[in-house]
């Protein structure tokens, strides 16, 4: 394992301190907790709290700030945070208008955030939850845990965050977050695995020329392996899975995220984005906004995911609204 770290035990703590050191105008640490909140303290709008395991940086601490999150809770690497941490975040950011929890759909995340919500509600704080499940790689079935939440979560942070900033009530912010979740789909592929610092070795291995399709963002295996294809073939496959799941027609408007998993050169992300834009053009689908970069990573994994969100006037306006966070300024 080759990593620029000190001790695997301290990696989350040091990372959070490093974020605060870099962006003191945006975020501060909630003393004693693995939680980042806005530097200027609670606002008098609906607050958004998200989080999850660490290793997805800049998610989620990098999106704390004006127009996005109010608090981000960092678990151990790839491990959802414990309820007490989430509970403290909720208490810290609530300005009286209530708190929306943005949860990625993993058994652990859902359970830990739910327990935290129960604790906060017992204190009289209004708490609502949304569960993001944008990953089309895995079949959705009522008999299973349902789909995973991956990079499409960023659109929830951005759009629901803008709604809250615009003065939306807790119900309204939750409603728009649900609308994002209904309209966003993602799928990813990996060229290489990643190594959890405390584990010290890669969580899977791939042969030279072999890739993992539809894997999650925690080093979990995907739906299958195959031989590396061209960028265009890969993008076509990922987009096809997305189109199979959400109906998009000519003149529809979307936003796109080509998300690097941590170890992917920016050059490759742009090569992939070219194909995404070509396919959309062929279909007559308009792209209102494109994000290309490392937004929801899996440590040093090489590979990428594509997220597509279908926009209406409200979603578009909120997506294009101002954001001022460590990792997204627009």
């Amino acid at each position, binding site marked *: 394992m080759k990593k620029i770290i000190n001790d695997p035990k301290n990696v989350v703590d040091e990372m959070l301190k490093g974020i605060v050191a870099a962006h003191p105008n945006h975020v501060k640490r909630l003393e004693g907790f693995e939680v980042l909140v806005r530097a200027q303290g609670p606002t008098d709008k609906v607050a958004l709290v998200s989080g999850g*395991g660490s290793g997805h940086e800049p998610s989620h601490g990098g999106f704390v700030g004006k127009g996005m999150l109010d608090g981000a809770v960092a678990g151990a690497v790839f491990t959802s945070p414990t309820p007490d941490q989430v509970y403290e975040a909720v208490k810290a950011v609530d300005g009286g208008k209530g708190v929306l929890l943005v949860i990625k759909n993993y058994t652990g995340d859902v359970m830990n955030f739910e327990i935290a919500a129960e604790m906060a509600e017992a204190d009289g704080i209004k708490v609502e939850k949304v569960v993001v499940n944008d990953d089309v790689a895995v079949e959705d079935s009522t008999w299973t845990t349902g789909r995973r939440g991956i990079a499409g979560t960023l659109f929830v942070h951005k759009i629901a965050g803008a709604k809250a900033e615009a003065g939306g009530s807790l119900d309204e912010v939750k409603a728009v977050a649900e609308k994002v979740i209904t309209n966003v789909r993602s799928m990813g592929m990996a060229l290489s695995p990643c190594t959890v610092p405390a584990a010290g070795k890669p969580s899977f291995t791939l042969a030279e020329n072999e890739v993992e399709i539809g894997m999650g963002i925690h080093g979990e295996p995907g739906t299958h392996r195959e031989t590396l294809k061209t960028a265009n073939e890969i993008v076509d496959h990922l987009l096809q899975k997305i189109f199979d799941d959400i109906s998009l027609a000519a003149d529809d408007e979307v936003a796109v995220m080509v998300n690097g998993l941590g170890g992917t050169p920016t050059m490759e992300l742009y090569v992939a984005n070219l194909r995404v834009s070509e396919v959309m053009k062929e279909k007559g689908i308009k792209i209102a906004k494109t994000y290309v970069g490392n937004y929801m990573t899996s440590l040093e994994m090489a590979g990428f995911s594509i997220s597509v969100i279908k926009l209406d006037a409200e979603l578009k306006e909120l997506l294009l609204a101002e954001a001022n966070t460590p990792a997204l300024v627009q």
Partner: protein
Amino acid sequence: MSKTLFGMIQALQETISSQEAFLTELDGAIGDADHGINMNRGFEAVITKFTEEDTDIGASLKKLGMTLLSTVGGASGPLYGTAFMRAGAEAQGKETLTLEEAEVMLAAAIKGIQDRGKAVKGEKTMLDAMMPAQDALKQAVAEGLSVVEGLEKACAAANEGIEFTKTIRATKGRASYLGDRSIGHQDPGATSFTLMLETATKYLKA
């Protein structure tokens, strides 16, 4: 050697610590390679909170569960946390247990896990070791076996449960995303439960 609750908790912590890499490896095959790390982080915190003074089984298991809940995270944190707390609630003020009481506690633990995680038998989770173990305990109680005899039957049943998890597809937890690819691998949570049960049994028997 006199057997104490603290001694048993120490034994559990040692098992989890020595099996950390193994449990993580199992989770790597079908999950996110952290189950051992998670459990070990939890028991490292647990061990700092106990001394020989802790003799009330009910209060102790509640404290143990709360500690797991606030240090483990992931899926196993809330599940084991709830399980130990619910088991503790059945043993308020007790310093020793009959086999029957142990069975009631395990049943409560299972109920807690199902309340939180909504899983049933056969979804390739820790329940697939816990439920057979509970059935074995129930039968042992009926047969009038000793505590150690009963626990040994439960261990055997839990181990069969692990074998069973190899044959099925996961439909709950992170491994469920793998579909058929999860077949052939044993469930990490079923394994950690069985390791803890075996440790407790050996500790009482020694």
